């Protein structure tokens, strides 16, 4: 970007930048500037950017042995003194747990080859480490490999996955998100798609253990959310105890249910499984007296994302998997990617492609055939008042009529 009009001369600019930075160090909230003062990050460049109200960084390149996960910037020509900034996206551990010995190793690498600055979590889910200079890039990769992690996940590739904490710390997890996270990464095809950018645009995969969606799988290109079918399980005995102890107010539970599925008759709490929208409200309030149902599933969503041709959107539901079908999920990933990779123009997210093709066409092209996959043919007759029915369909309704006849006993 060009220099903004009316930029003060270099010395005055730097002085003003310092004033701005000092201002950002005040206040009760932890300050990023005070943190960066302790590191070798070229802070004056950031300050100049604040004064100019323009990003001080321009594009740059660095040659390493990695094709993804390496990003380099160079200061614009109007920044006095110039400067460069190189950073790596480093893979996170499952659940983002950091044993202190592992953390100390990361810190050591960050001090030795980097400027001592770490972004603990980026929105992709990766950890970001700033480098000292371009020359140490390969050395840093070797050091990171030694402690069991690596660099990757940027550009038009599969990005770092994001999984919620799942069964490691949460009682609501409906499937093992961390196991899925690691099984996905163990797959060779996934590995290749992370290492080499070859897709039309980025592709993000996220795993959420329950409908509360802490990992934000709703806006992933491919999201997996734990759900159950039918009504939540109610342990009437335990619930009565909880009500007597004053922990749960059944009337309030009934009134607050967003789907209106709960009825309380003074003795028993009943939940209508057909109406239940899985909002988790009763479960959160009365756990473990009310638990998610036994019939666990993983809902698959395709096509969410923020950055893309048509703007921010949520994913489309394309079917259920069972909690142990992780291998099937990996196959599904590449089924979903295939038509998009082949046909979509560059820089179009999979959601944009689905919008152009139509969801049913996309499902057909990708060959998605899961439990409850939406299909155009399966539209209910009440949506289309009159139409030509196939023989098989008419037989189905004839059978239905026969059944009703038996029931009503005409």
């Amino acid at each position, binding site marked *: *970007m*060009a220099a903004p009009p009316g930029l003060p001369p270099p010395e005055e600019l730097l002085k003003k930048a310092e004033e*701005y930075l000092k201002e*950002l160090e*005040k206040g009760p*909230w*932890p300050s*990023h500037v005070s943190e960066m003062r302790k*590191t070798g990050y070229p802070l004056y460049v*950031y300050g100049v*950017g604040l004064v100019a*109200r323009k*990003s001080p*960084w*321009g594009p740059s390149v660095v040659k390493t*042995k*990695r*094709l993804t996960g390496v*990003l380099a910037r160079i200061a614009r020509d109007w920044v006095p003194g110039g400067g460069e900034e190189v950073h790596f996206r480093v*893979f*996170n*551990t499952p*659940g*983002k*747990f950091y044993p*202190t010995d*592992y*953390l100390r190793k990361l*810190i050591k690498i960050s001090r030795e080859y980097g400027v001592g*600055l770490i972004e603990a979590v*980026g929105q992709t*889910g990766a950890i970001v480490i700033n480098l000292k200079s371009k020359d140490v890039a390969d050395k840093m990769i070797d050091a990171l490999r030694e402690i069991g992690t*690596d660099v990757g996940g940027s550009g038009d590739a599969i990005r770092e996955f*994001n999984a919620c904490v799942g*069964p490691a*710390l949460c009682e609501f997890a409906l499937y093992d998100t*961390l196991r899925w996270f*690691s099984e996905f*990464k*163990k797959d060779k095809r996934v590995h*290749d798609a992370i*290492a080499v950018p070859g897709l039309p645009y980025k592709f993000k995969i996220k795993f959420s253990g329950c409908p509360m*969606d*802490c990992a934000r799988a*709703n*806006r992933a290109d491919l999201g997996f959310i734990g759900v159950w079918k039918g009504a939540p399980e109610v342990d009437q005995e335990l619930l009565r105890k909880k009500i007597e102890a004053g922990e749960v107010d059944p009337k309030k539970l009934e009134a607050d249910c*967003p789907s209106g599925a709960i009825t309380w008759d003074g003795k028993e709490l009943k939940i209508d499984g057909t109406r239940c929208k899985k*909002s*988790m409200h009763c479960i959160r309030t009365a756990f*473990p007296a009310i638990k998610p149902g036994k019939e666990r599933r993983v809902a698959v969503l395709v096509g969410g994302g*923020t950055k893309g*041709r*048509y*703007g*921010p959107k949520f994913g489309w539901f394309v079917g259920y998997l069972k909690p142990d079908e992780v291998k099937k999920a990996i196959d599904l990933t590449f089924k979903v990617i295939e038509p998009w990779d082949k046909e979509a123009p*560059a*820089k179009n997210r999979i959601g944009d492609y689905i*919008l*152009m093709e*139509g969801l049913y066409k996309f499902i057909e092209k990708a060959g998605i055939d899961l439990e409850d996959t939406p299909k155009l043919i399966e539209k209910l007759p009440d949506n289309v008042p009159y139409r030509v029915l196939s023989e098989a369909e008419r037989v189905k309704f004839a059978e239905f009529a026969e059944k009703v006849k038996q029931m009503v006993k005409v």
Partner: protein
Amino acid sequence: MSAIELIFPVDVEKYLPEIIKRNYGKWVDRKFHGNGIIEHISETGERVFTVKVALPPNARVSADTLEKFADIADKYGVGALRITTAGNVEFITDSLEKALKIKEEVEKLGFPVGGWRGALWGINTCTGFLTCQIAVVDAVSIGKALGDALKPYFTGEIPLPAKLRIYVSGCPSACAGGIGIDIAIVGMWGAAPKIREEVLPLCLPPPKALAKVPETQIFLVQICPTGALTLRREGGKIKLVLISEKCINCGRCKDNCDAFDYDPKDVGVAILVGGRMSNTGSGPRLARNLVPWLPANPPKYEEIVAVVKHVIEIWRQNAKPGERLADFIDRIGWAKFLELVGVPRITAEYMYWPDIARTYLLYRSRGEIIFRGLRDAP
């Protein structure tokens, strides 16, 4: 396929602390001990306490601070900590005394403890001017300014009706986590981008090829979702021009080519409210545009802080307990909410349409067919 062999940290067991390994998948209950401390109870009877600590905006921490965190985790915790997607850090320990001790220690270092239940859970920001070349406002310092003003909501000094989370993004790419959240602050160009003619040729085919290639094959024309970027013949030369009336400030051209520039005086932020990812209440939805443009004046951003605080206060004072901002707006209605906030009533269509529908239905590049499914329908 490739010669690159990446090493992934995939061994779940290796990174979990012992106490969590023993109780993996066996949790039955949780209890809250003030803001930021949560007790997980396992069916084996063991208890784990997590302490949620806010990190600086953009989760930028120095190695020195992380080392201090590691020391605290070793001394009072179980030798491990966890980083959350929301950019907070959670210390893990096995007793309430130790949890309180951790709280005391990190507060001494200047990091507030809070979050959970009816509180601000954290402020996510994109990298802003720290590394990004596309950002139009510095989301990181906006995050800092908001944090300073909203700290009481985080630590629980002022309780809120329900969970609140704020994302601050430097441009419409919304890298801080999209706009599906209670309050999203998104950097806006304010005016159509200016083209830097001296850099533009780098993003286009050579002039001779440009004269021959059909317009729809030019990359920059392809990526513009509204067809604002087109080729024009001017004095025997083919030029790329930007029709500013068609531009919707999505920033996709800037994403892909460095030739697009802006004037800082036009730049501001949009404030979007009432989004959510979770299926609680009436389900996930994207936030709605409340204020399309506000000035962004570093380093204090008084205007943005004031508006955000005003919105939170209206919600806090009028909402029922447990009602998130989205549910609150649903209950009272968007018109009433606008009246309570007192923003000028805007009749432009984009205030009422979700972003996606706006770009998808209203605009298209030349020659582009939207929804092939319709065209090919039998």
